[in-house]
């Protein structure tokens, strides 16, 4: 009997919390397909009585949202691809290659995790301005490719690659580069997948730096564009919700498909402590 009561209480609590968690997202979705003026009309229903795609049409035609989606996609994909390469190489090197000062250098890198990104934004802006890169995709891409967190994750995983595997290849005369692409990368696949997902997510959602580094409307990523639009179209709730859906949907889908990898990565990252 006691167990039944516990079961009811626990699961009701879970369902209640889940309801609270889902409600804002559900409302966002429903509002985006509601006819203009209905979302905040005080007649809240869980399922819309009538639905329309006019707000999405407006988003793409008037607000040129496709451009922002393209920007976000290009930037996030490029960052992810380059980050996997660069951090993969570095993580492997720190784990398996011996060079002078390796461990001290790695410890120094770990210290950089303590530093908030905002501290570097101001001079970074000046630096990129000197290089004439402000308002280009590269202004957003270059600074974030090399990530201490990424290097740490890869190194952690790479430590478990059996040395015998690598030594055998070396004895066979395989060059380091061939070895990296042929043996190491495939072995690192699981952690690279997790890192890739994280990197794409983080860069897609990034707001403050693209806000600073991109000054021309046509270059904006989705989050920046959305913030901009919210000033312009503040009365048009439904359209803003459509914009929110467009921004959130890709990464939400990515998350749903790849959750296990994501959660694994978080746990690995926190277990360091």
């Amino acid at each position, binding site marked *: 009997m006691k167990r039944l009561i*516990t*079961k009811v209480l*626990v699961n009701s609590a*879970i369902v209640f*919390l889940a309801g609270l*968690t*889902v*409600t*804002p*997202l559900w*409302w*966002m979705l429903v*509002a985006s397909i509601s006819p203009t003026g209905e*979302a*905040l*009309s*005080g007649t*809240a229903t869980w399922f819309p009585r009538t639905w329309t795609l006019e707000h999405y049409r407006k988003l793409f035609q008037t607000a040129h949202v496709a451009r922002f989606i393209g920007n976000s996609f290009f930037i996030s994909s490029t960052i992810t691809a380059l980050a996997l*390469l*660069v*951090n993969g*190489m570095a993580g492997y*090197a720190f784990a398996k*290659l011996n060079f002078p000062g390796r461990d001290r*250098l790695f410890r120094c*890198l770990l210290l950089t995790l303590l530093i*908030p990104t*905002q*501290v570097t*934004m*101001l*001079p970074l*802006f*000046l*630096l990129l301005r000197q290089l004439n890169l402000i308002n280009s995709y590269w202004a957003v891409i270059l600074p974030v490719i*090399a990530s*201490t967190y990424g*290097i740490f994750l890869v190194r952690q995983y790479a430590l478990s690659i059996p040395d015998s595997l690598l030594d055998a290849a070396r004895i066979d005369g395989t060059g380091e580069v061939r070895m*990296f692409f042929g043996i190491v990368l495939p072995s690192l696949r699981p952690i690279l997948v997790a890192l890739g997902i994280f990197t794409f997510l983080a860069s897609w*959602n990034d*707001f403050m730096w693209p806000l600073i580094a991109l000054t021309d409307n046509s270059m904006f990523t989705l*989050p*920046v564009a*959305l*913030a901009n639009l*919210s000033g312009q179209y503040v009365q048009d709730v439904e359209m*803003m*919700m459509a914009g*929110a859906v467009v*921004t*959130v949907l890709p*990464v*939400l889908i990515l998350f*749903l498909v790849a*959750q296990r990898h*994501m*959660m694994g990565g*978080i746990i690995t990252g*926190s277990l360091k*402590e």
Partner: protein
Amino acid sequence: MLVGPALVLIGLFFAIPLAGSLILSLTDFDMYALADIRNARFVGLENYKELLNSPVFWQSLRTTLTFVLLAGPISIGLSFSAALLLTSRTAMARGLFRTIFFAPVVTTVVAVAVVWRYLLDNRLGLLNLALRGIGLSPVDWLGDPHTALFAIVLMTVWKSFGYNMVIFLAGLQNIPVSIIEAAETDGAGYWRRLIHVVVPSLAPTFLFVLVTTAIGYCQLFAEPYVMTEGGPLHSTYSLVMMMHEEGFRWWSLGYAAAIAFTLFLGMLFLTLLQRIVRRSMAR
């Protein structure tokens, strides 16, 4: 060398700007220096002195700290509770709900802030509708200086509790079953086991979560930027917002760098505190 590209990138885009930030904060770099760098002068600790004398700085510091002290415990408490609920032996469909609880974490802050701005609308927002539904009076969440910050706390807790929940879930699973079973055979009920066995075993996890969450919340920017623009009456004006406004709207980059560095020192202090507490815990 394989490690080369990473080091070059980090050196160029992180280490150099980091040093540059310190130097910037010691100059009076402003709009005129932006046009011609020869206009910048070295002024030592002037920027910091000006900061300490600025009421806006103190208010934004207080606002940021209030936010951290409110959102931190609430968010961590919720994360831990959710983790406990999901590890209960009677919980059903654990995977599904774990996914649901974590979903807000991957959403874009800007999109979420926009959604919540309407949810919190004074007359027609869902939250006030719900309040009226259970007989309470509606609150002008984003319009009232006394409630605006708390509204942002609410939103932030909603968005981030899933993250720490995952960490707690892992921690809970790592507690040796033998310890729990020993307590059970000793006759300890659920709540006593919780307080005397589970929580102490998770002390390092709590410490880690506390500090990393606090550090994250100190960087509050996107939410007030999109929802309230720091208002009403600067009640949601965070430190990073001040840095952004001074640096990129007024172009007082030297002054802004001082703000950034102050923030950094504060967070460094928190991290060192964590190291010390953890070392004394291990003893």
